[in-house]
């Protein structure tokens, strides 16, 4: 890494899954910090830097968002729609990381301009590999918008 602080916003309502993601990310050290929120509303608050996420030093603008689809309060697709419809936010890479491999969900996600859509693998090894590759691709290989 080039020393630049990189932040991932993880939107995941299942605490176990969030833990798995965060552990893997820490292991591979792809990001300096991971902000974990449990619902769509909190995700939007964090992105807009409002409410309890107002402090940009504590909650910097993320460079990648890992977004689950089924979320309490504001649904994942709605968060995606909001982000991709916002002039300042739409460049943020959004990777849908979900349990659902339903055709309809992926179609809707792409309809709303998701950058990527991946289904959580059941196998632990695959889960680890996926997160490592995702992290490296989007934060190292990919030219970041900011």
């Amino acid at each position, binding site marked *: 890494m080039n020393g630049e602080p990189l932040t991932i916003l993880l939107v995941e309502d299942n605490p176990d899954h969030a833990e798995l993601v965060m552990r893997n990310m820490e292991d591979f050290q792809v990001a300096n910090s991971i902000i974990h929120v449990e619902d769509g509303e909190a995700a939007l608050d964090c992105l807009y830097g409002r409410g309890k996420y107002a402090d940009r030093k504590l909650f910097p603008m993320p460079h990648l968002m890992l977004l689950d689809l089924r979320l309490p309060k504001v649904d994942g697709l709605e968060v995606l729609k909001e982000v991709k419809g916002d002039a300042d936010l739409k460049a943020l890479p959004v990777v849908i990381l979900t*349990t659902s491999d339903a055709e309809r969900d992926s179609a809707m996600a792409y309809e709303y301009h998701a950058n990527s859509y991946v289904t959580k693998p*059941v196998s*632990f*090894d695959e889960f680890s590999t996926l997160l490592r590759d995702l992290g490296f691709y989007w934060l190292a290989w990919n030219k970041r918008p900011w």
Partner: protein
Amino acid sequence: MNLENLKIFAVKARRAVNMAALPVVAMVVVAVTLNYAISAFFLSDAEEKIKNILLSHRGLHQYIQKVMHPAFYKAREQGEISQDFYAPEIFSSSFVVRVDHGFYNEELKKAGLPEIYYKLASNNPRNPVNKADEFESSLIKMFNENSEISEFKKVVNIDGKKYLYFAIPFLETSNACIRCHGKREDAPQGLQALYPGQGGFNEKAGVYRAIESIRVPVSDEISTAFILTCSLSVGIIAMFMLFFFNRRLKRTVDKKTYSLEAEVVERKKKEDDLEKKNAELERFAYTVSHDLKSPIITIKGFTGALEKDLLKGNYERMAGDLKRVSDAADRMNDLLCDLLEISTVGRVVNTSEAVDMNLLVEDVLAQLEGPLRNSDIKVTVQSDLPPLFCDRQRMCEVVQNLVENAINYMGDQVDPHILFGVREESGVKVYFVQDNGIGIDEKYHENVFGLFNKLDAKSSGTGIGLALVKRIIEVHGGRVWVESDGVGKGSRFCFTVGRNF
């Protein structure tokens, strides 16, 4: 089966006959009357023609006898004409009239009109052309025997043509007539010379010695009238029938249309229901696959992590990870139980009965005493709750889930309070569970009833409670909804069932 068909056919046929009978009978009556009237009109027309001819003949007779004869006798007395002179062309009115009628017929023929038969028919004619035929003879006899009969008429058919035949007795033979029609030797010399034999002689006074026999054609007019009235009646009958049948047809079509429309509406409704059910099923399958897969990912993920930690000899977080695995397995078990539960709701176990809601709520609250006491929640139940027609066991689940939901979403309320009550809304009893907990933003009011939908990821329960409530209430033909003034303002879950007391 056959008999049944026959009966139906008979009923239908009778109905059709009844329906057709009225216009047909009416039209037949009208047609007959019309035909009769028209024939009568043409017959009276023909009769008038006949009378005209006869009267003009009579006029000629009169002229000859009242004007010509006196003038002739005067001239004879004055010696201008010889005593013995006699000429039927001058003397005999019957001769003159016959010849006159001959000329008349010639003129008619020239004018392209049908000739008119005329004869002064006698049984004892002086001139053989006046010989009565058999029929005429019988008429002479009839008139002489029945003095009150003054005329005879009849429509006759000759060579396929219709004629009006008419006969009246000729002048009664008087003494004046006897001069020429009595004994031969008494008649004028000239007459005797002209008419040899006894024809026209030996007549007696006081009888009719002849009839005026006449016949005019009416055939064309009557058949035209007949055809006209017939076609007119047939046309009118056809129109009537058409009108009646059309009305009947329209009624049948209307009825059919109505029933078809109703059928379409019903089918549409069924289709909509089916579509709804399908969508619900799809949502259900989606939710189930998603929610069952989640714990599997957790279990596999953390067993993988455990394995790695074991190899590394990193024991510190193993206990926690094991608990996560175990919890995920429990969660899966819970989900499966809930799924089973919700899938059985469709088939209501117990039949509905009038349930005393006061007792029911009391029972449920007794069961939830523990959690209520732990959260220090005060519960108020409105007194005299009206009874509800429902499946008691299922209604218990509804109330229990709603109260549990209120407990789960009480938040950090310092004075937690739950109220169970009823209110009336346009004649329908609305039961409700009200709390002063965290409340629900209006945009989630629909969502909360979805399967495994939880507004707060950290709240306890699988998220099936409200979905179950919704399912039970729907099976009861009722409705469930949530009212809340927003976040922090508490919420009120309301429900109705199909039949109230």
